[in-house]
């Protein structure tokens, strides 16, 4: 593997022990995947340090304690508690306090403590041809497919990429790998983010870790819908990139590759995802959730309008989850007031599947984390539904955002109606 003079200097410890260890790990990764050299990265979205995993916040603290400083703009991924108000979700104090230590460590390293799975809505917007590293698969697919940036599905090493500004050239950092492997024809007319998470979920199931070329959508999806479709695919499959001609740089509207493995997605397929994730009780559910992935400002506007003048039914809890940055924007715009007045909780930094509800984690027993026994969670996202099943191990009811609000207000489940197509 060819290393630049600066790479070699980092390996020699020219920028300290932390950068030396980071570069050594990146070289080992590059050699494993036959990377010819390293690329300069322009941005990294990194692991938060998660309080529900023993020793995990300490892992981030150890990197910061070695004197690590970020070489490029860095944002932090979703965490295990709302660091401003963990009490509102019923999280134990010890968990909230441990999670808050990650905030200190990231600030020491110069990272933006955004603690979100949608850092793009919080202002981190990498551009065409920029190499980036991301721990969050939803960020990877949005960056590759909507923004034209170049990212693999990464793990902890996004931190090392941020510290060194370098990453081995393999996977989607090579243009020859950014080509479609499947041709997916959509005959349905999905509308709204819930539908688009379900569409993505069907596509991810069909293509696995391939790159789907998506044809047939009759209107250009909104940014929120593009985001929703990407996270759906990254959940059911290992998709890191989709190609939607006219949207994905540099593929123009007439781009097509007819000979590829084909798949079709109909309204019945999309409805099938909603049906598959309707396993819970239709009254007496514990929680209605909006904001997976973390809501954009546009989604906050939508939720505020839906909840304006309404009241969440007695005994029902409604959570809206978003980043702390978007929460601040929403507050400034007067959008939080109608939500809170309706009885909703606006939670940042975490979400149901990322918080202490999950029973697939391994917290230090001293934290006293006891996942509550939940009967059913109502969701408006196939991603949240999938992980509620696997991580909280609780039944779900999956519907649209609008009908999830009706469900919360009436206390009775409102399923999505089938659409034409």
């Amino acid at each position, binding site marked *: 593997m060819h290393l630049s003079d600066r790479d070699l200097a980092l390996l020699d410890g020219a920028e300290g022990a932390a950068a030396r260890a980071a570069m050594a790990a990146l070289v080992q990764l590059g050699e494993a995947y036959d990377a010819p050299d390293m690329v300069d990265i322009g941005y990294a979205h990194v692991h938060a340090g*998660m309080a529900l995993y023993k020793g995990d916040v300490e892992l981030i603290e150890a990197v910061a304690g070695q004197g690590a400083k970020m070489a490029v703009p860095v944002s932090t991924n979703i965490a295990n508690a709302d660091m401003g108000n963990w009490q509102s979700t019923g999280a134990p104090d010890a968990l909230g306090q441990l999670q808050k230590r990650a905030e200190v460590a990231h600030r020491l390293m110069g990272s933006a403590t955004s603690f979100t799975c949608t850092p793009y809505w919080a202002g981190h917007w990498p551009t065409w041809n920029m190499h980036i590293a991301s721990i969050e698969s939803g960020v990877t697919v949005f960056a590759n497919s909507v923004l034209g940036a170049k990212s693999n*599905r990464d793990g902890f090493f996004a931190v090392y990429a941020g510290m060194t500004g370098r990453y081995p050239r393999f996977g989607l950092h090579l243009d020859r790998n950014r080509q479609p492997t499947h041709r997916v024809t959509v005959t349905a007319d999905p509308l709204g983010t819930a539908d688009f998470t379900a569409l993505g979920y069907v596509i991810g199931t069909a293509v696995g870790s391939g790159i789907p070329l998506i044809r047939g959508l009759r209107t250009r999806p909104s940014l929120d819908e593009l985001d929703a479709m990407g996270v759906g695919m990254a959940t059911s499959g290992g998709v890191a990139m989709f190609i939607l001609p006219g949207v994905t740089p540099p593929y123009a509207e007439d781009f097509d590759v007819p000979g590829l493995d084909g798949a079709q997605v109909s309204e019945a397929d999309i409805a099938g995802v909603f049906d598959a994730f309707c396993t819970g009780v239709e009254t007496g559910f514990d929680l209605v959730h909006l904001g997976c992935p973390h809501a954009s400002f546009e989604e906050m506007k939508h939720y505020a309008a839906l909840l304006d003048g309404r009241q969440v039914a007695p005994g029902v809890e409604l959570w809206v989850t978003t980043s702390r940055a978007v929460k601040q924007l929403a507050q400034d715009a007067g959008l939080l007031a109608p939500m809170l007045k309706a009885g909703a909780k606006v939670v940042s930094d975490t979400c149901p599947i990322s918080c202490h509800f999950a029973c697939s984690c391994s917290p230090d027993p001293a934290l006293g984390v006891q996942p509550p026994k939940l009967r059913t969670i109502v969701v408006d996202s196939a991603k949240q539904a999938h992980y509620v099943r696997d991580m909280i191990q609780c039944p779900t009811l999956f519907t649209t955002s609008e009908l999830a609000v009706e469900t919360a207000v009436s206390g009775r489940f409102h399923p999505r109606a089938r659409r034409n197509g």
Partner: protein
Amino acid sequence: MADGIWQARGVVKGRAQGKALVSQTALSFLGDLDIRSGKVVGRSSDLLGTCVAGRVLVLPASRGSAGAWRFLYQLKVHGTHPAALILRDLPDPSVTQGAILAEVPIVVDPEAAFWTDLRDGDMVQVNGDSGCIARC
């Protein structure tokens, strides 16, 4: 190669020794393993109910998941990690990142004789630097 010594490709550096635990099915580090006990809980694995702690885990493949690194590292934190991994195919980058963090050597694509000669329970040494696997 001499009897009981096989060449593979070193992917994650380091040396380890342990009893071989041979599986014919792919394993996902996210979801198929219980962190605290190190036991396989994934129903699609032929190792269901077996503990991987301290073993040299021999797999045809790992199933990809972006979160695999965190679970591999958690096994290390809880002392339930395998000693080393021997895989037919190069794993997902997330698995490699977790193994580097957890200091679990990985070698891949061993020579054909390995698959016919190795027996489950054999004590083996794995050298992730040279790619060498040796029965001892």
